[in-house]
């Protein structure tokens, strides 16, 4: 029987990465993700795997780049200000098509901000925080279990598409403790004939994103776009809660989705027909899944720990067919279940049929 343990989100993610065959971890201290780095510092050397405390987040992501280029499963973790520093490296990973896992346990910004949970890095994660036309697969866990599971999924997706993958979490999910069923299946990363292993009995391999001659960069970009289209077609993930027959659709992810779950339960007791669609992938975004409910749903409510970022993607998906409402808190504030319940009541009062 799979082992069940009580642990924190950060440690569950670390253990998930280890069980997913993470060969190399590179990190730099920043709250609220330090438990993850500390866990790796204890367990990676014990397993004869690589742990390096880098001199900066910039160095850490470039160490990930090196280890990924060498064909190994490599990861780094940080929190918002540190992830800003990694953006250059993420662009290079995407450009050179290197698989890697990057964890952002979000805290509130902008600037140094503070260590309270936040979802204000949605734009940075999903719209390309670095330069150039690239996409990164972004997974959004809403529980300690998903912190664990998405580490495994993240490495698999990264290898399958030769693309960086981000787990976009937040300080609340990183810090809280829940029971977790530990992953215990064997992992078998694919062969990586492109990797740098020494050119033994083959032409030399080159990891590059620099193409200076004769339109080659445009060809490279078109190929990347074809890959992104394939990912968008195959890897959308989401979960629904009480959505069948609901008149109001709440869209929320991560910590917000947990709060919304409680609010929806209370609102339904009041007779309001409300359900939720919870994106598990923020890119690719469940655009069609959202649109598929709009024949019945009469209003959409988006809840985020931000001034409103994902709501823009929801509006694109809804495309003006029904009103899209928003409730959020900024700067580390977290809406209560009562706040969201109140907002659901307001939306219902605007004339949604029960």
């Amino acid at each position, binding site marked *: 029987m799979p082992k069940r343990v009580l642990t924190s989100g950060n440690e569950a993610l670390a253990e998930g990465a280890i069980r997913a065959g993470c060969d*190399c971890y590179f990190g730099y201290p920043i709250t609220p993700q330090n438990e993850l780095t500390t866990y790796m510092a204890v367990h990676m050397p014990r397993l004869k795997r690589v742990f390096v405390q*880098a*001199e900066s987040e910039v*160095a850490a992501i470039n160490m990930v*780049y*090196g280890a990924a280029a*060498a064909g190994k499963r490599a990861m780094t973790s940080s929190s918002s200000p540190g992830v800003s520093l990694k953006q250059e490296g993420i662009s290079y990973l995407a450009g050179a098509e290197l698989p890697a896992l990057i964890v952002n346990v979000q805290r509130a910004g902008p600037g140094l901000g503070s260590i309270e949970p936040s979802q204000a890095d949605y734009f940075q994660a999903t719209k390309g925080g670095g330069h150039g036309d690239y996409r990164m697969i972004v997974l959004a866990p809403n529980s300690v279990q998903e912190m664990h599971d998405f580490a495994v999924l993240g490495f698999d997706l990264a290898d399958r598409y030769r693309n960086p993958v981000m787990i976009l979490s937040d300080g609340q999910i990183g810090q809280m403790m829940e029971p977790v069923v530990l992953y215990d299946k064997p992992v078998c990363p694919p062969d990586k004939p492109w990797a740098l292993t020494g050119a033994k009995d083959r032409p030399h*391999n*080159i990891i590059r*994103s620099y193409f200076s001659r004769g339109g080659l960069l445009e060809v490279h970009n078109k190929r990347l776009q074809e890959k992104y289209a394939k990912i968008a077609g195959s890897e959308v993930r989401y979960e629904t809660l009480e959505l069948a027959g609901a008149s109001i659709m709440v869209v929320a992810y991560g910590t917000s989705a947990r709060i919304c779950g409680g609010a929806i339960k209370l609102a339904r007791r009041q007779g309001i027909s409300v359900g939720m669609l919870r994106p598990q992938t923020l890119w690719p975004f469940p655009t069609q899944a959202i649109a598929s409910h709009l024949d019945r749903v009469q209003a959409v409510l988006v809840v985020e720990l931000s001034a409103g970022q994902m709501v823009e993607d929801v509006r694109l998906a809804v495309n003006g067919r029904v009103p899209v409402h928003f409730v959020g808190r900024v700067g580390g504030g977290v809406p209560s279940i009562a706040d969201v319940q109140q907002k659901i009541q307001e939306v219902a009062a605007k004339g949604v049929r029960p």
Partner: protein
Amino acid sequence: MTETALYTRPKSLLDMDMFYCPGCGHGIIHKLIAELLDEFDLRSRAIGVAPVGCSVTAYDYLDVDFSESAHGRAPAVATGIKRARPDAFVFAYQGDGDLASIGMAEIIHAANRGENYTTIFINNTVYGMTGGQMAPTTLVGQRASTCPNGRDAATMGYPIRICELLDTLMAPSLIARTMIDGPAGVRKTKQLLRKAFQCQLQGKGFSLVEVLSPCPVYMRMDPREAIEHVKNNLSAYFPVKVFREPAAAE
């Protein structure tokens, strides 16, 4: 009468026209690296790390596995590769802007951790790829596009001596400076690079060879003058010497 080949292109050097400018030192240093890769039979386990700068496409000329790196990040990329593949022979090739300006943090910390890879640091006192801007190693008074009246120490500081800086650290194994100032300098450079390669192969840790090298175009000289400039002026400020080497290096 039998014919004996006295000189051939090293196997690890690809048969390509190099795009470097006439009189540039990169071609000579690439060839030395290729000769040593052959000498130690390293093609099947060597992994190079290219910088951002004129030598970003070093992999067009050197026939071993290679990775680009973001500007200044070669020491971090080399760290990742070497830690992931300890049996590989890993070398990073960096210029003065890459290593001594934007990548200063990375080189100091890689050296301080004693990472077991080899750095070949080309110091020609100027940014080449971007068009001749002031480098952290540009000499006081030297003109560049971003110091058109010459480097003024009062506002731009003094050229940074990397070997001396790294020589304050405990961990590095080999730190040496050499120069391309004619055949003798080329031979001496090869000897030091050989020691640096051995350093890594014997697991002795971080090695760095700084090569003072001509960039005639942006030194605003003809190739012969640039060589003389390296010999007379660069080496006067950047002393050519072995700062440290492992006791047992052969």
